[in-house]
Every structure is written in structure tokens, then in C-alpha cells.
């Protein structure tokens, strides 16, 4: 709890070891971010101004449009995150209980889709969902009416879940596999049935993995543009909008939207952090 004030160096690491990354992040993270900020806040006479932001939300139509774009993005990402968690948690729980060999095999199977290029994976979903794609061909072979699958919100969420599921499974599994099995036995011993063991021991102790899983799925989902364009028809999410602005090219609007998205993600992360801290806090209270 009480971190010692004095910092001790545990190995022979020197600041010099950090130099390559420092340079990297200056060139490719800090500098571009600064440029985005500059574009977003650049007024007509090369002065600081909020004109770009104002122009986005000046009209009622503009407010409605951007509200929907951001709202949809958050909603789709939220849906994808919830589905990923719903799939990953039981799976991770199951995997962590398995034998070492089985665990390694399952881990492999989960990783395999990640070996494939993400764009190709997403594109292949088109051929499955298309009007004359794999599913609809099968349905018509069964003499069932075809379904509109492609270019629907469901397809977009499916694409997100498919691509980002491993990022949920990995952290949840890695925390769960390190859970001390005698904690489960201790809980059983003290009168906990399976349900009580799950909700009073396994879930609270896996929370750190769940939190990082949620972050790792939610963040790329909320800002994706490729998935929504390929599986959702006309890309209508914030990622698409940003891409479109840069294509126009309207660097000012693109940069402003990027900053808003970053702010939203930041707020979500902080809420997340607060939630998980709050959980721990409530144990102490």
C-alpha cells in the first residue's frame, strides 16, 4: 500500500537504455500528436482558434450528424466489447482449468486468426455474408429465404468481435491461469458452492485481466474504419469520418475529430480505471 518514497534501482538499468524508445516516441508519437493538435486549433491567420470545432457543430444538422456518428461508434464498440467478454470469460475460465497441453493447444487455436492479415480476415467475411455468399448459398440450398447479412450493424460488430476477441481472451486467461487453485478450495471449504466461488473469488480476482481486455477491445473497435467500410457498407463510424476528412483533404476537421475521439477514449479509460479501483476500494471499506 505504502510505496517507499525512495526509489531503488533493482537492476543495472540506466536511463540510456530508454533512449532508443524515447527517440522513437518523440518522432512518431509526440510529434504527430502535436501536428494533429496544431491542425485542429489552427485559425485563419495562423493563430490559435476553436473555429474548426465550431464549424463542426455550428448547425443543428451538423450536431445531429456528429452526435449519431460518435454515438454509433461508441455503441458498436460497446456491443463488440460486451460480446467479446461474454465469449472470452467462460473460455478463459475453461482453459485455465485444463491440462497444460490442452491449454497450449487452445492458445494456438486462438492465435491462428491473428497470423492472418487483419484486412484479409475482414474481407473474407464479406464472401461469407454476401447476398450470394456462403451462408446465403447454404440457405437457398435448404430452400430457405436469403438473409441480408452484409452491410448491417450486426456485420460490423461481428467483424470487430472476430478481429479483437483474442485481445480479450489473452489478458483474462493470463490472469486466470495464475489464480492460486487453493483459493478456490479455500472458498469451497468455507461453504461456497460453485456460484459463490465464481462470484466471490474467480470474478473479483480476474478483474485486472478483464479491465485490460476491455480496453484492448474497446479502443480499436471505437476507432476502426476498415471493418465498418467493408462489412457495414458505407462506413458511418467516427473512424470512417476521420479518414474521409483527411481524404478530402480537410486536415483541420480530421484533426479536430481525432482529438474528440481521443478525448472520449480517455474519458472511457478513466471511468474504467475508476471502476476497477472502486471495486478494490470497496473491498477495503
Amino acid at each position, binding site marked *: 500500500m505504502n510505496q517507499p518514497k525512495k526509489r531503488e534501482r533493482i537492476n543495472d538499468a540506466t536511463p540510456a537504455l530508454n533512449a532508443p524508445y524515447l527517440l522513437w516516441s518523440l518522432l512518431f508519437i509526440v510529434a504527430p500528436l502535436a501536428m494533429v493538435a496544431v491542425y485542429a486549433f489552427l485559425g485563419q491567420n495562423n493563430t490559435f482558434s476553436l473555429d474548426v470545432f465550431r464549424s463542426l457543430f455550428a448547425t443543428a444538422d451538423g450536431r445531429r450528424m456528429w452526435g449519431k456518428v460518435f454515438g454509433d461508434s461508441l455503441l458498436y464498440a460497446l456491443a463488440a466489447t460486451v460480446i467479446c467478454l461474454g465469449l472470452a470469460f467462460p473460455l478463459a475460465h475453461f482453459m485455465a482449468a485444463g491440462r497444460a497441453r490442452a491449454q497450449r493447444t487452445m492458445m494456438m487455436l486462438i492465435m491462428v486468426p491473428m497470423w492472418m492479415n487483419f484486412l484479409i480476415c475482414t474481407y473474407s467475411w464479406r464472401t461469407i455474408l454476401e447476398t450470394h455468399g456462403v451462408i446465403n448459398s447454404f440457405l437457398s440450398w435448404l430452400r430457405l429465404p436469403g438473409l441480408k447479412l452484409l452491410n448491417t450493424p450486426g456485420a460490423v460488430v461481428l467483424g470487430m468481435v472476430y478481429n479483437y476477441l483474442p485481445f480479450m481472451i489473452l489478458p483474462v486467461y493470463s490472469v486466470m491461469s495464475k489464480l492460486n487453485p487453493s483459493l478456490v*478450495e479455500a472458498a469451497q471449504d468455507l461453504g461456497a458452492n460453485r456460484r459463490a466461488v465464481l462470484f466471490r*473469488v474467480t470474478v473479483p*480476482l480476474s478483474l485486472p485481466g478483464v479491465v485490460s481486455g476491455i480496453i484492448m477491445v474497446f479502443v480499436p473497435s471505437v476507432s476502426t474504419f476498415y471493418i465498418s467500410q467493408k462489412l457495414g457498407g458505407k462506413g458511418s463510424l467516427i473512424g470512417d469520418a476521420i479518414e474521409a476528412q483527411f481524404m478530402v483533404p480537410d486536415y483541420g476537421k480530421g484533426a479536430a475529430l481525432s482529438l474528440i475521439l481521443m478525448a472520449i477514449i480517455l474519458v472511457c479509460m478513466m471511468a474504467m480505471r475508476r471502476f476497477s479501483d472502486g471495486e478494490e476500494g470497496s473491498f477495503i471499506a
Partner: protein
Amino acid sequence: MEKDIVIDLKNVSVAFDGEPVLKDLNLYIRNREFITLLGPSGCGKTTTLRIIAGFLEPDGGDVVFDGKSCLGLPPHKRPVNTIFQRYALFPHLNVAKNVAFGLKLMRLPKDEIEARVAEMLRLVSLKGFERRTVASLSGGQQQRVAIARALAIKPRVLLLDEPLGALDLKLRKDMQMELKNIQQQLGITFIYVTHDQEEALSMSDTIVVMDDGEIQQIGTPKDVYDEPKNAFVADFIGESNILDGVMLGDYLVRFAGMTFRCVDKGFERNEKVDVVVRPEDIVIVAPGAGVLQGVITSATFKGVHYEYIVDVQGFKWLIQSTELHKAEDLIGLHIKPDEIHVMKKSKYSDEVGDYSSYSDEFDELSNPNVEEDGEEE
């Protein structure tokens, strides 16, 4: 007497991957008894405990609680609680919430839970630690929390799996006394597992010496020390000089090339036996004055006494004495008849040797052909 039995293990056997771990074990445990399962790692003592707790189903036999079989009964429905080897405290809960864990599951009213938690923390002298995190506690304090947590729900029987193994010597001795006090104060049955013979001797009402999945001897601490049933028990509990002997008749045994009067009888005439002489029971006398005579090969100061390894015709005896002698000294050994304990030959007879080294383990450690077998679990 029959009605006072809480737990009865009947012909219990277990095998892991075809390897027998418990072989037809029979053991009953009386109410309010402090019983210790004592044995080396891999002897099946922890397995026995896990069967009682319900973490493991035996392959054969029956486990009876209060006259009712509890085979198939899950751990959370058994009236026993366990203190785990490494405490297994919940890291996400503070001290008070750890202790309250079982009480909450019983859905007791809040004020009753609080009262019981306070009572338990007082019992283990941890008052004022309620809000501390588990990680901020020392090993000894974590141990106490584990005890308070298990006792809070008032189990009939408390199972303790090497609970003091991780503590240092002084603290271990204090905790031994404290555990014994708690047991007597609350009148709960304790089933204690340890490989530490001294711990077993000082705490238990009854000791169950186990090895190789079988019970070697059941008895009071004094019984198992003074009257070990076989070479394994004699070797495992305390230090013992174990020699091959022949019973010449009642009260007459021959070993180390000499004939001794003893207090044992009832053996076959000329029956081969194991003879035990405890190192503290041998009196060092002038050479020629004793029955045996040997040369001290090593002398070690141990604080309360000296420990000598004495070579008598090639057999290395261990002798403890407060008298000062030097290595290379020629001495006589005197052994009184009632210090000689005669045991039937057993499968362990060939395994125990003289004091060329203290433990078989030591010999095994230096032998590249012996493979390390895994810790019992």
C-alpha cells in the same frame, strides 16, 4: 467410546495414475482429539486430509462423519475446515472480510458477522488488523488470519495441512502452543498434518505415523517414541541406533556381537529382530567397563549435549552425552536393559543403517542414480 468417534476412515484407498497413494487405510478420530498425521513427504498424509475435506474422492473405502457416509459430499457441505499449507487467504479481501467470508455465505445478520469476526481476531491476537490488506501481513499474521477464518464458522473438525511449515523456528514454537491452547479452549477436533516429528510429539494427543500410503503406528507421543513398532517409526521419530539382532529367548537379545538382557519377550526363539537404542540412553564409560567398546570418529557440540559418532566394529553409533570427549578417544558403551527396545523385522529393516550419515535423503542427494520424486500433492 464408539459414540465419541467423529470421523471414521474405512479401508480407504487412492491411486494417482495407477500409483497407489493410500493403501487400505483405516483410522478413526475421536471428538475433541488433537490427532497428528506424521510422515515424510509422499507418505499420503496430505491426501488423507484432502479426502476428509472432500477435495478428493477415494477410489475405494468409506469416509464416515458422525455415523453417516459422506462419500460424494462436496467440500462446502462438510462440517470440516482446512488451514492450507500456504494459508490461501483471499488477496482481494482485507483481514476482516477474509474472516467474514464463511459467515457471509451462511447469510448471518450483519451485526452477528461483525461480532464473530471481532471475537475471532481477538482469539488469534489480531485485534486492530481488520482493515489491513492480506499482502501487508507477515507470514505469522497471515497464518493467524487463516486460523480465524476457518474457526469463524465453528467447524466440528479443523484440518491443518503443515500450517507452520513456512514460519521460522521461534515463531513456530509459539504458534504450536497457541494452536494447542485454541484447540483446548474451543474443544474442536484438530487433524494436523506435519513431517516435523518434534511438532507432532509436542502438540498431539495421538500420533499417526504414516509411510508409503500405510499407517505404521498409532499411539500417544510417548508410545511412538518409546515403543516404536518398526524400524521406520524408530528412524523417523527421534534419532535411533537400529541394529540387527537375534532374540535368544525371553528377555535376552544378541546384537553387536554381544548378548544383552532386555525387557522384551514373546518372540520366537532365535527370531531375527531390529534392536533400537536411543542415543541419549547410552552411557559412556571407561574402555573395558562397558559391554561394547568403540572409537569416537566425530564429536559435535550441540549446546545441551555433545553428539558423538562412535565406531563399534564398523557400525557407527550415535551417542548423546553431556560429558566431553575428543575424536579418536577409545570409550566403553553401557546400555541398561530397559533402554533396549526390540522390534519385529519389517520391510524397513534393510533401509535403516548406521550413522555414517544422518539421513537417507543425504545419501540420495549425493547419488546421481536416484531420481527426485515430486512433492506430494
